[in-house]
């Protein structure tokens, strides 16, 4: 008995060695397979969770980088080989379209901060104002683009039906109005920002706050004005439609009369 006990570890060692040489220990295989299967099971317990996490990750990345959401893929894999063996990993493949200017700005600011470590500088108010103006311009331009596109299309349709010069002019006027409003708004923002920037006595923090506030208010006023213009356009459009219908009816009745 005792002799057997003494030799048992040696025999086991040799057996294990032999098996390892062949195709590895079965317990390692079991563990490996279970790791994978449990991961799938766990993930499938709440597929919503995975979607939610994916969306949040995208939101964060989108702040700084323009990404291609269509081809983006996120998945759980068996993953990396760390010091404690293999572990699960969250694998994401995110195609980048462009790095946003915001991200570049942060890099620049960080560098500046490094250079002037002693003076804690807030971001330059003028620079900030410029970016805000840029943003508003972008928004306005996009909206305008959409508007004018729609209007052009609608105008074309009306042309085909009635081809009255009147409607064309009205539509043009409306577009001009919208453009004017956008210009006004950007101008306003520029002025206020510059004013604030000139107030050198104020601390930079206050300036930034004010800029944010004023931009918010201008944004809302811009929206209001835009909706006003929209309504105006809608009115004219219904008028045009009405007159078009009338004309059409007239033609119809004339044709009938002739027949």
């Amino acid at each position, binding site marked *: 008995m005792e002799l057997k006990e003494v030799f048992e570890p040696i025999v086991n060692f040799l057996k294990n060695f032999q098996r390892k040489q062949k195709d590895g220990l079965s*317990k390692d295989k079991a563990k490996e397979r279970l790791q994978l*299967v449990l991961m799938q*099971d766990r993930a499938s317990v709440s597929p919503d969770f995975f979607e939610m996490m994916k969306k949040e990750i995208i939101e964060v990345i989108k702040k700084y980088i323009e990404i291609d959401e269509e081809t983006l893929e996120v998945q759980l894999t068996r993953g990396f080989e760390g010091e404690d063996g293999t572990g699960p990993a969250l694998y994401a493949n995110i195609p980048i379209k462009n790095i946003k200017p915001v991200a570049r700005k942060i890099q620049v600011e960080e560098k500046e901060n490094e250079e002037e470590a002693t003076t804690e500088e807030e971001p330059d108010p003028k620079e900030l104002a410029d970016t805000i103006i840029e943003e508003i311009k972008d928004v306005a331009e996009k909206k305008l683009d959409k508007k004018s596109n729609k209007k052009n299309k609608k105008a074309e349709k009306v042309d085909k039906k009635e081809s009255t010069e009147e409607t064309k002019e009205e539509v043009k006027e409306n577009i001009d109005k919208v453009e004017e409003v956008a210009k006004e708004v950007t101008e306003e923002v520029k002025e206020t920002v510059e004013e604030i920037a000139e107030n050198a006595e104020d601390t930079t923090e206050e300036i930034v706050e004010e800029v944010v506030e004023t931009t918010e208010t201008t944004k809302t006023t811009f929206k209001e004005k835009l909706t006003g213009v929209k309504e105006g356009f809608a009115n004219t459009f219904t008028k045009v439609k009405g007159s078009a219908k009338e004309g059409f009816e007239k033609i119809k009745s004339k044709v009938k009369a002739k027949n």
Partner: protein
Amino acid sequence: MGEVIVITSGKGGVGKTTSAANLGTALTMMNKKVALVDTDIGLRNLDVVMGLENRIVYDIVDVVEENCKLKQALIKDRRYEGLYLLPAAQTRDKNAVNEEQMKKICEELKMEYDYVIIDCPAGIEQGFKNAIAGADRALVVTTPEVSAVRDADRIVGLLQASDLPKPQLILNRIRTKMVKEGQMMDAQDIVDLLSINLIGAIPDDDNVIIQTNKGEPSVTNPKSLSGKAYMETAKRILGSDIPVTIPGKKEGFFEKIKKMFGGNKEKARV
């Protein structure tokens, strides 16, 4: 006020009923008053494992349907002071009881007993939901096999989604020889996979079959390896922080010396 402990596993045949019988008996041997509740309606077995099958008059469905009082349905085990069994019904199904009724029974038993051990049926359906409804604590039983571990993981997820966020693990039927040879996952492997705390590691033991044949839990045999492991587990249920003895774990020369001098204070991390 006592504590309600549910013993569950997901997969069938891993030793839920055996664990419930042994832990219940072990706790009574430590002078606790224990009620064993069999919730496996339609497939009751805790009564035969405990050797009390001939004494059943009323069952859990009779209690729920108010054919009798709870006290009348509880069978007193004459061999062990303070051990009682509430048997499951054999001719009904899991839907004969609902979660609210189960909660009520647990509340009532808690007033009278130090520990209420609930033997949960296999599966994740109504029977499982009933069994965990009134529980304060859950013990998940598994064996070192891929199917049992997978089901255990599912159960852990479901328990965590309910009001039992910290289930503990009983690893059953460890084959020491196979673990030594590297042909069976050891306790650490299972703990790594399930990431819950280990409260008991029970070696595979012929004694369990022999004892069950006789209708006696293996804790009553002081020579039985599984009995010893269950006793240790019961101590840990009572709050002792003795390290879990892992069957088949390689013991180094220094550990043996340390153990000889009683200096093994090192807590098992598993």
